[in-house]
């Protein structure tokens, strides 16, 4: 059982991932924006962090950059999970230290879960 932090501003998506992950024995905690997400990451020390890209207040790229600057949480694997698909974006976020890049609408919930579990095992 893993503690997963989801930084996502869409409540429907948060609930969907929450019920799905909990059915498979994981604990999902969530933050509504980047600032709250970074604070929660520091406080909760999750096993993995899922970060959305387009958010109010602080976008996903900035969250990732701040995460990697913070010595306390920089080693927690971070996955960018978004519906934004642009040429070179995946490469950019991997370069910034993310372990994976997922386009939500393109893969099933089951596959999202397997990708997360794959990184948890590492």
């Amino acid at each position: 059982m893993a503690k997963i932090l989801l930084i996502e501003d869409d409540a429907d998506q948060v609930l969907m991932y929450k019920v799905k992950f909990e059915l498979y024995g994981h604990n999902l905690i969530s933050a509504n924006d980047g600032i709250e997400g970074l604070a929660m990451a520091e406080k909760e020390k999750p096993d993995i962090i899922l970060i959305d890209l387009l958010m109010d207040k602080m976008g996903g790229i900035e969250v990732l950059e701040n995460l990697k600057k913070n010595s306390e949480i920089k080693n927690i694997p971070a996955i960018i999970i978004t519906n934004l698909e642009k040429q070179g974006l995946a490469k950019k976020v991997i370069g910034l230290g993310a372990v994976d890049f997922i386009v939500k609408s393109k893969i099933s919930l089951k596959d999202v879960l397997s990708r997360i579990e794959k990184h948890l095992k590492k």
Partner: protein
Amino acid sequence: MIKKQISKTKKKVGDPGYVNQTCWLASNLNYPPSKRCQYCETKFSNCLFERFFITSLVLISVVLVFTYLMEKTISTPIIVSLFIIIIVYGVFFDKSTERIIKANFAEKQAKQDFKKLSKTLQQKVEKQTKNIIDKNVHLEKLLEMRSKFLDTTSHQLRTPVSVMKGVLEMINTGEIDNIDPKQRKILMEGVFQKAKKLEQIISDILDATEIDTSHFVLSSSLSQDLQLEELINNVVQSHQLDVKTGNITLEYQKPKKLLPKIKGSRKHLEQVFNNLLDNAIKYTPTLNTQTGEKGKVSISIAKVENSVVIEISDNGIGVPEKEINGLFEKFVRASNAKEMYTDGTGLGLYIVKEIIAGHSGKIDIESNLGKGSTFTVHLPIQNK
């Protein structure tokens, strides 16, 4: 044959660079063309210097012979000859000089005209170049906006799809039955809202595309006699739930007297006021932190001259001053609106503007950043 060739190569009167070899000025003083008598390059028989020379010679000879025969002395003919030379010089040579000056002046004038023409041409070329550069900048801006629009729109189209797909996947696998009924209900409501959102985005894109291809014009098939205060009342009523959710107040100031009807498309005008009211409610927080006022949206309608004027005011986030002018352009969203809500196609106000223009009306905006905005719609009353 050779003669023909010589005559071909020899410059004739009127040819550019022709020099009258009999002209004393041209041949002996090697005057440059600009200083020559204009006749030197035109008609040999009209060479003024030659005229002066021959006339003087003839007159002097006649006078010399005549006075010598009369007076039998040489001094008087010489004095008379000198007078004749001065008179002939004055009559002919001065005229020749004047013509030389005129020729020089004409040349200078031509040079000045040419310079002026060059300058005008250069200015025209510079203006055209600037226009092309401006158009390119505008095009680049449009392409950039289009690219941003495609990024954000594809994101917005995919977001509801990903939720719908995810929930359907859980229904398909039977997992949905294993979750808490309360959560299931919220999830289903979420899917429904996402489907509505998706429909709205698609509808905005289709409307904007339709307006792009054929600007909205109020056709006779669309035109109806409309009592606008009723139409707006319906729009206001449909937003009561949003106002309650946002914890703000919505005030509709109805006119005391019945307003004249206007010709318009009910469907499109409902779209206009729905959109304007949606925006006002969406960008008006419960509490305005800058002014300390409680969130409030008001809508009023009145007859002003030959128009029905509808004002939609709010005390919300407002629009940055330099962004006001471009707000009705396609794909444009105010920067503070983007910060507040990441979703939005930037097509809503463009569609609003085009529909109002199709009704021969106009829309204005007044806004103070952090204090609120007022959108004013003018729709003409048709004279029957």
